[in-house]
């Protein structure tokens, strides 16, 4: 299988997380992936301010971003018709991996959900999936966002999707929430048959 590469250079990536240290970690991971235009904000108001003034290429947003929450923010971005960032890829980060929360994120128009704490491998795989797997957009009276009927059939780089986790010595995710695999599967309403 061909080995893909992902080029994040000159892409404008906005990290929206209330924790400065969490942002620093994500910022570091993205720099390692080759990104060089990374913005950070701590609130949904900060996101809206930036979106008013410039176009961004990717939003990585915490589900509990104050004051409105990342899911409401996602819905607002998707619903605002005169917004040039309306179709921007949105990755929601959450430490609340309960099924209801993940489904809610999907149904607000998020492209992917990534569980916290996160590893470089888990972030890279979801960025690569977003980059290499095109999904049509769907516009209905109740929903605007990426088509929710899709199936993840492995990550695109020709290697096991968690292969790098141990090699880079990051810890396991803990807690009672869904594992990242289960979160991914909730995004796969399986277009079967």
């Amino acid at each position, binding site marked *: 299988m061909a080995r893909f590469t992902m*080029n994040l250079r000159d892409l404008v990536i906005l990290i929206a997380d209330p924790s400065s240290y969490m942002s620093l970690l994500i910022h570091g991971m993205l720099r*390692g992936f080759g990104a060089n235009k990374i913005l950070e904000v701590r609130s949904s108001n900060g996101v809206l301010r930036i979106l008013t003034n410039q176009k961004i290429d990717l939003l990585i947003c915490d589900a509990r971003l104050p004051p409105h929450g990342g899911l409401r923010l996602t819905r607002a971005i998707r619903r605002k018709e005169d917004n040039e960032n309306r179709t921007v890829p949105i990755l929601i980060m959450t430490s609340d991996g309960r099924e209801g929360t993940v489904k809610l994120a999907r149904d607000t128009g998020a492209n992917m959900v990534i569980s916290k704490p*996160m590893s*470089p491998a888990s972030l890279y795989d979801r960025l690569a999936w977003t980059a290499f797997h095109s999904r049509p*957009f769907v*516009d209905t009276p109740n929903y605007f966002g990426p088509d929710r009927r899709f199936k993840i059939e492995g990550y695109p780089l020709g*290697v096991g999707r968690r292969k790098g986790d141990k090699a880079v010595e990051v810890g396991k995710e803990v807690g009672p929430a869904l594992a990242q695999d289960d979160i991914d599967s909730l995004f796969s309403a399986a277009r079967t048959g």
Partner: protein
Amino acid sequence: MTESANPEARIFVVETQFQKMARRAGGIAREQAIEKAQAEIDQIKPEFDDWLDRELRDLIANARTGDGTADWIATTNFRSRQLRDTGTTMGYELLSFIADSFCDLLDSIADGGECNMDAIVCHTDAMMLSLQDAYRHLRPDQVPELTKGLQRVAKRPGTQSPPLPAGPPQETSRRNGD
């Protein structure tokens, strides 16, 4: 209702700038990208330890003034979430586990549960313990009496606090990240 079942659905293809540019030649292969990202994280680690000490002190100071008000819960929960979300990535799995349990406890207080100071102190003590050299890089399964006790206390905050381990942690053949 699914998209296809909705007669009013408009379906259209979007190739985003992110997709176009990420697919350009000259990118970084997965393994190399992950190695570089880990190197970036390693550079942050010394600073992380200082930050962690400060955050934990602030969290404990805040937690022990526990009055059960919405502001107190929000502030304490935010600080605890920070530790949970960064701890595992930086190799502090036990701290992340305890912080996660503390977040559950705070969520239950926010939902109207009892604001039990014993349960709160139990969690903050466990966090302090997790930063001692003997515990710093342990996984939760290496201190089962602590983790099970915390889970019990978080579920039923009115019950007796779990005993903190008196001796050194269990020896196991696995090291963190293996």
